[in-house]
Structures are given as structure tokens and as C-alpha cells.
């Protein structure tokens, strides 16, 4: 299945990615947020530190905040970002 990924704030800056299209193997499903983070963490040290390290990372699927065990479906827009600091 195909998904669209977005990164924001410190993650975008450190990973040097703002958005990407990603193909996830259906055979490895079901895909959760945690599983996707683990997959991305394999890209290298900085990815591991940003997504699976000490820093808090929040995730959204289709613009809704979700937990690590949320399931990702084909065509979803998934975003990773630090805890928010607006207002």
C-alpha cells in the first residue's frame, strides 16, 4: 500500500525531509504507527534518534492525532512531529 508522509519542526529540520511517498509491503501488515516508526528508524542513526529515541514524537493520521498502536491504511496521510508549542 501507498502512504504519504509529512515531517514537521525539529524532525523536518534534522531528517531533512518534509514529505515523501512511501510504499509499505502489504505482506508485512497490518501497519501501525509504531511499526512504521521502527521501519524508518532503520534508515540510520539520526532517524533512530528522532523517531525511536528519547525525544517525544507525536503522530497524526489524516490530520487526527493518534497513538502508536493506530493502524495505517492505503492512501493515508501520516505525519510525525514533536509535541506542539503554539499559542
Amino acid at each position, binding site marked *: 500500500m501507498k502512504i504519504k508522509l*509529512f515531517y*514537521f*519542526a*525539529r524532525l523536518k529540520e534534522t531528517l531533512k525531509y518534509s514529505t515523501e511517498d512511501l510504499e509499505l509491503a502489504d505482506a508485512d501488515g497490518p501497519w501501525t504507527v509504531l511499526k512504521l516508526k521502527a521501519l524508518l528508524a532503520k534508515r540510520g542513526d539520526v532517524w533512530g534518534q528522532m523517531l525511536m529515541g528519547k525525544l*517525544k514524537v507525536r503522530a*497524526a493520521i489524516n*490530520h*487526527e*492525532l493518534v497513538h502508536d498502536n493506530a493502524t495505517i491504511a492505503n492512501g493515508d496521510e501520516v*505525519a510525525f*512531529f*514533536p*509535541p*506542539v*508549542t*503554539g*499559542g
Partner: protein
Amino acid sequence: MTVRVQTEDFDAGFEINQLRKARKDVGAVVSFVGQVRDINEGDEVSQLTLEHYPGMTEKSLEAIITQVKARWNIIDVLIIHRVGTLQPCDQIVLVAVSGGHRGEAFAACEFVMDYLKTEAPFWKKEATPSGERWVEAKSSDDDARERWNKASESKQ
């Protein structure tokens, strides 16, 4: 309900008057304005840059207003949040709530700010004499939001 995410400044007085004059059963308008400070964590701040997640930002602010309207008997809610680069004393956010009476409007306005600070996808980066840094989220903001959950539990 009105939600605006913009780089431009806003006129809080004008916006409050609009809410006030919109209906004759409005008896109270409560508003909050947040502005850029020139100090944070003991360091001088010369500039603040706000990033957001277009699309999700508007949806999350609308979802907060929907919750507020279900919880309190209020008339209307306006949220304006700026993004981009701002200087000390620049306005960041305006929340204004109109209602029949002050009590519910006060509570609703505070609830919007507590949820906005913990759920709406905005991130601040500040310029200090030692360079730029991302502002860290505060656990006191999470606590401020959580007390609304406790308040609703104790009512039941």
C-alpha cells in the same frame, strides 16, 4: 465559528466588536490575546518563527470549538493564530468567545487556549543570542488541559 491561520496581524478590537454586535442576545465577550515575549528560559529572544501543519491546524482548531460548544452554552467562538516570523510584542493568537453570560464564556475561552496549546499543530522556534532553538513543550500545559478532563469526571 471562525478559525483563521494567517501571517498577517489582526485587530483584536475589531474582531471583538464583530462578535459583540453579531447578535442581540450576546451579553458577554471574553477574549485572550497571546503575544511574543522578549525572554524565555532566562534568555533574550529577538524573534519567533511559527511553523504549522496546514490542513490539520484548521481541523484541530475547529474540533476544539466543537467540543467547547457541546460543553458550554455559548454563542460563538473565534480563533485567529498567526504563523511565520514574529518579533517581541507582536500578537500571536486571539481567542474570543461570546455568550449570554460571562461565566460560561470565561470557561470556554480558557478551555480553547488549554487545548490549543497541547493539540493544535504549531511549533515555535526562537532566536536567542546563542542561536536558534525549538521551544520545548511544557508539562504544565498538559496539566492545564488535563484538569478539564478531571472537571468533567467529577461532574458525572
